């Protein structure tokens, strides 16, 4: 048990000498995995890609500003953590134009701000911005607002300006989020009962929008359409 090994004692088991060197398949698989992981990290790293490929030769990357070399500043830790998840999802999206370059003074305030959630050159919609803020756990600032479309414009019967409104009806005007007037619709006046010709109460829709079957006589029945966005492609408000 306490026998010391003699200097001439072979270090290997004689029984294994004859078999020669034989690698472990498990260890080999781990090694290959590490190499592939390192290659994948290097390939997807924005900094590495920018270092290797000239900007003019590469397609415009959609990368988070916080990790962009254009800032020449170390991004705040919280910002990088918050941005990485939503921004990485944008990696496969086509790069919008025009390209907007943002810079941050490396000696200035590094407090995370809204631009940390917008890829460089991207014109994100307000819905996208709010969604990314929420995914990052930000519920304050813009993250406190409901996204556009929470209460979409009402669609109802068009009521021409020269149509004389009978008692109990209202001409209701709306606007799109980009400032376009929507054709007025016909609605019931609020807080009042409605009866039919026999004096029986009529159930009216909760949103007070007049359905075609309750349109007043003489009104051409036509539903309005909401105008398409006039500023498609520009950031939401």
């Amino acid at each position, binding site marked *: 048990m306490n026998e010391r090994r003699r200097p001439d004692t072979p270090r290997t088991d004689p029984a294994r000498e004859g078999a020669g060197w034989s690698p472990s398949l498990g260890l080999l698989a781990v090694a290959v995995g590490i190499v592939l992981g390192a290659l994948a990290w290097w390939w997807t790293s924005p900094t590495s890609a920018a270092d290797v490929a000239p900007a003019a030769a590469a397609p415009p990357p959609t990368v988070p500003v916080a990790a962009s070399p254009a800032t020449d500043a170390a991004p705040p830790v919280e910002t990088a953590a918050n941005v990485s998840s939503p921004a990485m999802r944008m990696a496969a999206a086509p790069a919008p134009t025009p390209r907007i370059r943002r810079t941050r003074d490396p000696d200035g305030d590094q407090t995370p701000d809204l631009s940390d959630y917008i890829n460089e050159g991207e014109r994100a919609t307000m819905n996208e911005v709010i969604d990314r803020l929420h995914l990052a756990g930000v519920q304050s600032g813009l993250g406190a607002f*409901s996204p556009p479309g929470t209460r979409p414009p009402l669609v109802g019967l068009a009521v021409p300006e020269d149509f004389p409104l009978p008692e109990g009806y*209202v001409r*209701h005007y709306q606007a799109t989020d980009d400032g376009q007037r929507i054709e007025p619709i016909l609605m019931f006046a609020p807080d009042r009962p409605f009866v039919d010709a026999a004096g029986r109460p009529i159930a009216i829709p909760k949103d007070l929008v007049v359905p075609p079957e309750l349109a007043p006589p003489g009104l051409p029945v036509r539903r309005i359409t909401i105008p398409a966005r006039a500023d498609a492609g520009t950031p939401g*408000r």
Partner: protein
Amino acid sequence: MFLAKVATMNYWMCEFARQKGFQCADSFAQYMGADYDSNGDGQVDADALRYVAGDSESDYVTRITSTLRSTIRDANAHFVSATSSYDYIQSDDTHPTYTGGTVTSGIFGSTTGSGAPRYTSFTDGKSPIWNQYGHERMGWALSTSNPPPPQQGKGGSRRAKMSDERTAPT
């Protein structure tokens, strides 16, 4: 309960503004009150709902939550007459509506746009669309009180205007 809290908040917004030498453009009244006399009390609803300098908190809150409660209506159906209403609120159910061009601030990386005036005549100080959009309504309310000219040797006027918008600035 909620209305009482809103009324209290609105009162102190305007009251603190008064104490500091500001004038208050009461957007709560401008947005939530109709532009006609809907309850027959002899006053246009939006005027009757306004904060009045000298109001006590209890008087103001009682006026809003009880006396004139029936004249308060959500701003997504602002009545300019008994037969015409305008939605003052955008689809996010928060920001006021507007019309015309916009100026985009730099939060998305650039500042673009222009805001040239659209009207040259203002009957009684009002543009033709003063009560048809939320932003235009707020703009008119702010225009009704002018700050006095700066005074020599006193570092300029400390009087200004303050809006107690019920919505956040865009």
